[in-house]
């Protein structure tokens, strides 16, 4: 199993191929529905005027995301009262909801790794080829197991989005994932979708 350190180099990303199991170590940031919408509207399309701590958060997350990974995850976090945060359960959420935003978010923040589950579509795959980047599939539902690879919660931004939707900055050690979309246009999801569609047509014709 290949061990990778965050942030990624372009070479490390280009070496990844669909099907490769990997173990990630380093600093990553969680971000899901609310975060992607906020990023696109406020900083990519600039359709919304930055408010409150928006600009300060933007400046803080830029260097964290550059070359690194965004993790589609809404964790269960202990220590909310004391701010002595600890990840209790932290598996991936379904990524396809971010398909309208992900490619542009990757380009804007120079994000090279997108971690989630269920795979993404052609827009994200195109961004993986450009940036370059890869989609790293974590095991859905394996929340206690993945939480054990989170060695430290470094901080949190936009906690007002709610615990699941906030941006948690975490340090991980040997976080397990499988490459299912690579920087060369390969997508396991497109492949399985096509094969299952052909199998379905066969079953329904019978």
């Amino acid at each position, binding site marked *: 199993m290949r061990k990778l350190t965050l942030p990624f180099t372009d070479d490390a990303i280009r070496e990844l191929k669909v099907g490769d199991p990997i173990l990630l170590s380093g600093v990553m940031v969680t971000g899901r529905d609310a975060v992607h919408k906020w990023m696109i509207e406020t900083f990519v399309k600039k359709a919304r005027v930055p408010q409150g701590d928006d600009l300060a958060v933007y400046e803080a997350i830029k260097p964290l995301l550059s070359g690194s990974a965004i993790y589609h995850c*809404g964790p*269960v976090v202990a220590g909310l009262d004391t701010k002595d945060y600890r990840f*209790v359960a932290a598996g991936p959420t379904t990524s396809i909801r971010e398909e309208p935003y992900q490619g542009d978010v990757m380009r804007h923040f120079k994000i090279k790794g997108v971690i989630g589950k269920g*795979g993404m579509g052609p827009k994200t795959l195109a961004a993986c080829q450009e940036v370059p980047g890869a989609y790293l599939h974590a*095991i859905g*539902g394996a929340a206690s197991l*993945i939480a054990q690879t989170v060695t430290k919660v470094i901080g949190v931004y936009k906690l007002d989005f*709610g615990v699941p939707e906030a941006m948690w900055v975490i340090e991980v050690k040997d976080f397990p994932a*499988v490459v299912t979309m690579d920087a060369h246009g390969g997508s396991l999801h497109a492949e399985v979708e096509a094969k299952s569609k052909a199998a379905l047509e066969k079953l329904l014709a019978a």
Partner: protein
Amino acid sequence: MRDLTEAFVELIRLTSTDLSPDVEQTLVAAREREAAGSAARGAMDAILENVALSRRNSTPICQDTGTPIFYVRYPEGWSARKLREQIRAAVAAATKKSYLRPNAVDALTEKNSGNNLGDEAFPTIHFEEVEGDELVVDLLLKGGGCENVGAQYSLPLRQRDFDAGRDLKGVRKVVLDAVQKAQGQGCAPGILGVAIGGDRGSSYYASKEVLFRKMDEASPDPLLAGLEKQLTGEANQLGIGPMGFGGQTTVLATKMTGMHRLPASFFVSVSYMCWAHRRRRMTVHGRSASAPSGGEEVAYHA
């Protein structure tokens, strides 16, 4: 009336952290079917390791602890109003203990309530007064990923690549279509809850209720029992596999029920449940209560 709040907290803890043995057994069998060294086998290994770890550490199997859905069947003498208050108090307490993630988000203000208490439907609590002297409370934790891939079809249906009529042949076609569309996004391998008939609301309700059946419990209707088996087998021929990585097991089991319908309507509702099929039962007899623990129903004294 006794205060069952603590017993409800325990029911929530067990449901969230301790997968029922009948579900775990089907996952073990599914692991065996995947080729050694494959991504699907790796996914099943991680799933089973996570199930054991969650049980040992009393941590949520999945961080998406979903919508807590309670079914309360109470004999005469219990107050549904008080039971509702106690269940809501237990849900808030279980959230504080990290057995549940705060999941109740106001759709208009976007504000997360922080304690899993939202409107009347969050948590969802169904009440029904029953005969006898036994209070039975079932809990299902159903996450958003699998809820999003649920589907409802109105038959007859003419699609580009198939026609589905108002009969079990048509039902078969749309259920397989729903599984193919879901791909791995509902955290395959999943369990299918299927209701035939009803109206849009009652049909979805029934498609969730059948998910409480044991994994090896077939429909009492022999026609449906046959179709359940057939659909599980055919869904697995789609090759979607664990997590959508490709593989032998896409669906662990299919649970079906038939309902009455209007002459004009023929709905087929599919509730997809992820592999982390978290459901538990608590029973209260007269003065003593039994809460499920470690997969067995053990005596519990409130």
